[in-house]
């Protein structure tokens, strides 16, 4: 029916993959999108440069939650380098629906949060918190 709300998107939203917490994440970050009230915490378990475990918690719109669910599936088992190379376009291709400009922030929150988690880990911190800039609220 609606292009945006295909069955698989809603399926991911209702039963998100990898939803939950890791006991000992090696990288973790809470990203948010204050305009929408979307909020996601990404937790990664990395060893030997490979993302072995991944989990997320949070609340938000179907787009942001489905995006997080699909992204976690995608990056599990990838090398950190591969994950760092992922572009917004890659994620949008993965999601497979056309996202309007107003919803881009929702769709990309998960990738943005993963990127922050990896950057923090690289610079030795963990679990910093930062909100995502808004193009006007």
């Amino acid at each position, binding site marked *: *029916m*609606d292009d*945006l*709300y295909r*069955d698989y998107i*809603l399926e991911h939203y209702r039963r998100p993959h990898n939803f939950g917490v890791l006991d000992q994440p090696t990288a973790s970050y809470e990203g948010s999108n*204050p*305009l*929408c*009230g*979307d*909020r996601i915490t990404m937790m990664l378990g990395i060893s030997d440069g490979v993302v072995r475990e991944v989990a997320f918690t949070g*609340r*938000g*719109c*179907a*787009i942001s939650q489905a995006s997080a669910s699909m992204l976690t599936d995608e990056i599990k088992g990838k090398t950190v380098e591969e994950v760092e190379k992922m572009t917004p376009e890659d994620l949008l291709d993965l999601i497979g629906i056309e996202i*309007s400009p107003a*919803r881009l922030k*929702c769709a990309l929150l998960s990738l943005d949060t993963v990127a922050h988690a990896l950057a923090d880990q690289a610079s030795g911190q963990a679990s910093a918190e930062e909100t995502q800039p808004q193009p006007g*609220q």
Partner: protein
Amino acid sequence: MADTATPTARIRTQPARIDPHRIRADFPILATANRFGKPLVYLDSAATSLKPKAVIEAVDGYNSEYSSNIHRGIYEIAERATAAYEAARVSTARLINAPEAAEIVFVRNATEAINLVAYSWGRRNIGRGDTIVLTEMEHHANLVPWQVLVQERDGDLEFIPITDDGLLRLEVYEALLHLHPKLVAFTHVSNMLGTINPVRELTEMAHAAGALVLIDGAQAVPHIPVDVQAIGADFYVFSGHKMLGPTGSGALWARRELLEAMPPFLAGGDMIREVHLRRSDWNEIPYKFEAGTPDIAAEIGLGAAAEYLMGLGMDAIRVHEQELARYAIETLRREVPGIEMYGPEAGDRGGVVSFNLPGIHPHDVAQILDRSGICIRAGHHCTMPLHERFDLAATARASFNVYTIPEEIDALAVGLREVVRIFER
């Protein structure tokens, strides 16, 4: 829509009424359709209103027939522009029953008006330990400028809390007034809850405690009769773009003595009397506060909007929108099981209905409605603290105006059922 159309007919006609169906012909945008060919169902008037032909043509007329600068030109089109600009000030003053047009300062929007007061009046009158009382339901425009001010001047903010129904708790207000605030600032009508605050009573209480009063009329002037003299306010602000006028137009009204005592805010041309290299004298009010070339086209459009509203009659507009609010609350409650709505129970409330569907994010609601041409707002509506108060990440909001018809509320109900169906499938 057929199954929900019946209740429409039940709304009784009364003497002072507007005919929204006829009014709709005045709004060219209502003849447009979205990318799927669906007609526009615009339920986001609290964000900005649509513009009637009278306003569009006022702007157009200036731009294509007499575009020139004002107050300075000795030629025909400049005199025409000056006259039109000053006539807009008179119309704007009449709309809120200001004692004199010179007390109307044209600004870009309500936000600028509040900042003007915070900078000009506030920097001079708020010092260490001085208190400003606000409410928990303020729009960011009537909150953040005061945060910045008290932080800079080492003053304090206090907040009138609200009940779960979205009403100000007057007994707490009473107690806060014992702090002898310098200023009490509150919204006339809440843009999220629809609450219409008892502005006259709030003002009298503030004055009795020795405070000045600033009222944010952004959601009031477009929708209900406003009489700044009857209210007894000191400062009253509003935006043109929410009251059928152009973006870029708006007004600060304040009592003459206040404006005369305040230092200028923006400095430059037009607000001066004499300029020397190292000192200048200020012009009289309101020009002292209108530095540089104003938004002549927009303010002329604001005048046209004020005349249009007065032509319809603010009392009649009020009746229309109150009925729409009641109808919306009834209809959505009946047609959309599980819907949660916020704000006071019908009765005395503005044409704004904020709601949530259980388990569905408002952004998803708005996005799906968009396909059907239905425009609602989703988010925090620039009232994050109010959303925090209700522990809400976001809400969806439908808001009305003179051109809104019950059929659009029916369409919203149908759309929301569809949203639920999609998410439940």
